[in-house]
Every structure is written in structure tokens, then in C-alpha cells.
């Protein structure tokens, strides 16, 4: 393949010129349809009322940086992986640790829950030259040696940076530092499709949310975000407007757009049908890179974790910052909204995880009144029982 000769009249220069003209044409086509900005369209939308999202739970238990976390589909369990080589499954409300899996490798970069079965996916980083992605089936029996049931599924030539089960739960999509993404069959470990096109490490990927969807978006160190067709392996669309590495990409809940978080201290919002960037979320006071991002259930809020230890919450439509969450004492490595949108989980290099949710202020007074009623009631009951 590499030894194909020159075709008639084709030279490296002519191809370069052709690619330049095509790039310009692409820009022109995209700009023609850029008739208005997203925040202008959203001017008529009500400004968000003050958000009362606060950290309600702090999960301590890891001995070192927490590199990754994910929610379980039962909406209350979380799985987290840390540089101390442990993967822990937590109950987010009661703070119980349900499982703890020690692994021989310390660079467990990512983990995820399988959508249908209670499979926990763990990825091994490359200390020990293990550029593999392994799957571990979880069970309720705490005495089982879970690490022994580890099954190696994917294999890359460099570290594996991101992973995701597909909708069917039988296939695994991975992204790697070798610049490729790959689709694997979980049972046989076979490579089904590989995706080439990035010219540097691919740092993150996200699957389209629809049930029938078969596209995914990946972002990498070449500052590009590419949208791929899973069946053909083709790169459908490519977006290059970031000024530094893209650390995280996430689809909008409707599947028509996606956001990316980058080391250039901005998050950007791209629409797939308009084929261009429609919003940039940045502030002069934010100079540290964003390492992770996620949307709320309705897509109105974009949570982005930064290397300055904060989580900025952006109003997606208006392009302004809604609020800022403090609390972590080191870089925020991952933020994830729970599957039903009730809570936000964040993992950090300060070895803790935090779960935050919002209480509606309106019901505060009603709640207090009801609490008072119950107290009065219980006092009366006490009086009666004492009398008897």
C-alpha cells in the first residue's frame, strides 16, 4: 500500500494545494450558515435562578489520587479508581464501600459500569507495560476473589485513555495514546473495528446517547475532535478550534451536539448538524486547563472540572458561568452526573470523591413546618405513653 506510485499529473505539491483549497472551501461552507450566535438565540430564555448545588457527601477511602469515577446504572452506586491500585464501589448516599478490588497495576486510568449487567470495567495504565483494558464481573458475594476473574479484552500499543461499553453491552470502545480508537468484542476479545485519523494521543471518547446511535466522538492531543461512524470506521466530521489538547468530550443529552474541555482553559460547544462550534465557555480569570466535563440531564448546565481545583458550572445556552463549586484540594480529575440527573459526582487528585446535589429552596419552609408538626406529634405520643 505504501509503495503505490504517483498517478498521472499528481504530485505531493498538487495534493497539498488541493487540500488547502478544500480546507478553505470547508470553512466557507460552514461560515455561510453561521447566521446567528447561540447566546443571541437564547437571549429570550429566562436567566437561571441561583443554583443551590453544594457538596453533600465526601467519600474518603482511597490512599492516593482518584483518577476516574463513574456511576452505576442503578443510579446510586459509584465506582472509582485510584493511583493506589484500588477500585472501590461506593454507595453514594450511605457512603458504604461495597467492593474493593486491588489490582497489581497502579495506573488504573478509567473505569465504567456496563449498562445492562453489573459488570465493572477497569482499564490498566501502562506501568508494567500493560496497555490493556480488562473487564471484571462483579458479584454480591464479598468473599469472591474478584481480581482473579479479571479478563483482558483490549490491547493497544500505548496507554489506554478512555473506554466505554456500547449500548449492547457486548462491545467495548477504547481510545488510546497510540492515536487510535478501537471497538472490541467483550467475550472473545477480538478487534472488530479500528479508527485512525488522530495524529496524536486520543484522550477521551463518548458514545452518542441514542439507542440506535452508532456514532461516537473522540478528542485528542492534536486539538481535534472527530466524530466517527462505528460500523464503517469512517471519520464523519472533524472540529479543530481548540488551542490545546482536548481532555474530555461529552455528548449533549439530545445527541445533536457535544462539548469539549481543553488545556487552553476553555470548554467549547459544537453542533453536529450545523457542523461548527456554536459557543465558547471561557473567562479571563480562568487560566487553568479543564480536564473533564459533563452535562446535566436537560443539557442546560455544563459542569467542567479544572486544574485549579474548582468545578465551574456553565449555562450552556447563554454562555455565562452559573456558579462555581469549591471544595476539592487538588485537581479535579472527573465529573459525572448521575444517570437520572439527580446528583453530580466528582473525583480529584486529593484522593476524595464528592457528591453534590441541589435542594430546592422553595420547599425549605414547608419542610421545616412539617418537621415541627412531627416533633409536636411525637411529644404528645410520649406524654400518652408515659401516662399509661
Amino acid at each position, binding site marked *: 500500500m505504501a509503495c503505490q506510485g504517483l498517478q498521472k499529473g499528481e504530485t505531493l505539491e498538487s495534493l497539498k494545494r488541493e487540500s488547502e483549497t478544500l480546507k478553505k472551501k470547508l470553512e466557507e461552507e460552514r461560515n455561510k450558515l453561521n447566521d446567528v450566535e447561540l447566546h443571541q438565540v437564547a437571549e429570550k430564555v429566562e436567566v437561571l435562578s441561583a443554583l443551590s448545588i453544594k457538596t453533600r457527601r465526601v467519600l474518603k477511602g482511597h490512599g492516593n489520587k482518584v483518577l476516574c469515577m463513574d456511576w452505576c446504572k442503578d443510579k446510586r452506586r459509584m465506582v472509582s479508581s485510584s493511583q493506589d491500585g484500588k477500585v472501590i464501589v461506593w454507595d453514594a448516599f450511605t457512603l458504604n464501600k461495597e467492593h474493593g478490588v486491588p489490582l497489581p497495576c497502579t495506573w488504573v486510568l478509567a473505569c465504567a459500569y456496563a449498562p445492562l449487567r453489573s459488570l465493572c470495567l477497569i482499564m490498566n495504565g501502562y506501568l508494567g507495560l500493560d496497555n490493556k483494558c480488562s473487564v471484571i464481573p462483579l458479584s454480591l458475594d464479598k468473599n469472591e476473589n474478584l481480581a482473579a476473574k479479571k479478563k483482558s479484552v483490549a490491547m493497544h500499543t500505548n496507554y489506554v485513555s478512555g473506554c466505554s461499553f456500547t449500548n449492547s453491552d457486548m462491545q467495548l470502545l477504547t481510545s488510546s495514546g497510540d492515536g487510535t480508537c478501537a471497538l472490541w468484542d467483550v467475550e472473545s476479545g477480538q478487534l472488530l473495528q479500528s479508527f485512525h485519523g488522530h495524529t496524536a494521543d486520543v484522550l477521551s471518547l463518548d458514545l452518542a446517547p441514542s439507542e440506535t446511535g452508532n456514532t461516537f466522538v473522540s478528542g485528542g492531543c492534536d486539538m481535534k475532535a472527530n466524530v466517527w461512524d462505528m460500523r464503517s470506521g469512517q471519520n464523519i466530521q472533524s472540529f479543530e478550534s481548540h488551542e490545546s489538547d482536548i481532555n474530555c468530550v461529552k455528548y449533549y443529552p439530545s445527541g445533536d451536539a457535544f462539548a469539549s474541555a481543553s488545556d487552553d482553559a476553555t470548554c467549547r460547544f459544537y453542533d453536529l448538524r450545523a457542523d461548527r462550534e456554536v459557543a465558547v465557555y471561557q473567562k479571563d480569570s480562568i487560566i487553568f486547563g479543564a480536564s473533564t466535563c459533563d452535562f446535566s440531564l436537560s443539557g442546560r448546565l455544563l459542569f467542567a472540572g479544572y486544574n485549579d481545583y474548582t468545578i465551574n458550572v456553565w449555562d450552556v445556552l447563554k454562555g455565562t458561568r452559573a456558579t462555581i463549586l469549591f471544595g476539592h484540594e487538588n485537581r479535579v480529575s472527573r465529573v459525572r452526573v448521575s444517570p437520572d440527573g439527580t446528583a453530580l459526582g466528582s473525583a480529584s487528585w486529593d484522593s476524595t470523591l464528592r457528591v453534590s446535589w441541589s435542594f430546592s429552596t422553595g420547599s425549605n419552609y414547608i*419542610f421545616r413546618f412539617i418537621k415541627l408538626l412531627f416533633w409536636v406529634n411525637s411529644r404528645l405520643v410520649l406524654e400518652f405513653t408515659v401516662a399509661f
Partner: protein
Amino acid sequence: MTTVFFEYTSTFNLGEWSLNSPLKYSSKRLFYEDIFSPKTITNNMTSNSNLSNMRRLVEQLKLEASVERIKVSQAAAELQQYCLQNAGKDALLVGVPTGSNPFREPRSCAIV
């Protein structure tokens, strides 16, 4: 393949530095000259693979230019509509009743 392995181990053995920064800084940035085969060494191969790369790039650009697009105003309006439609269900936006467990199934209270 073995050579590549040694390159990676040598960059990693920088000890403390590599453990305190994201992994991407300790791996080599790979610039593919020929995507479908391992990095080649001879000059002949390099010029041919540059050519095939350029050809691939041109094909890719043609494909991207032919994508069907809609106006930003229409796309933005649809995004906004989705947001507003689902805003009521968004617990991080609206909030859960104070003091309650957000992870419990929502139950309706009946006053007896």
C-alpha cells in the same frame, strides 16, 4: 516493535515527575507517516507514505465538505427547545425537596 517498547520505558523511568503529571506527558506524541503499518525507516517508503497520507487527507476533506448542514439559528433553536422541555425533570436545576434522599425512588405522600 521491541525498539518502540524500550523507548516508552525509558521516558517513563523519570520517576517522580511522571507519577505526578497526567500520563499523556510521558508518552511520545506519534505522528503517523503511514497509518496502516508500523513506523517505517527507509527514505523511499517515507516519500511514498507522505503521498498516500496526502491522498487520504484530500479524500477525507472531500468527504467532510459534502456533509449536509443546517443553519446555526435552526440548530440553536432546537437545542434551546430540548433544554426547556427537560428543565422540569432536571434535579440539579430545580432541586430535590430539602432534607430528602435524592437517590430514593420518588414516592407520593398521602395524608391519612
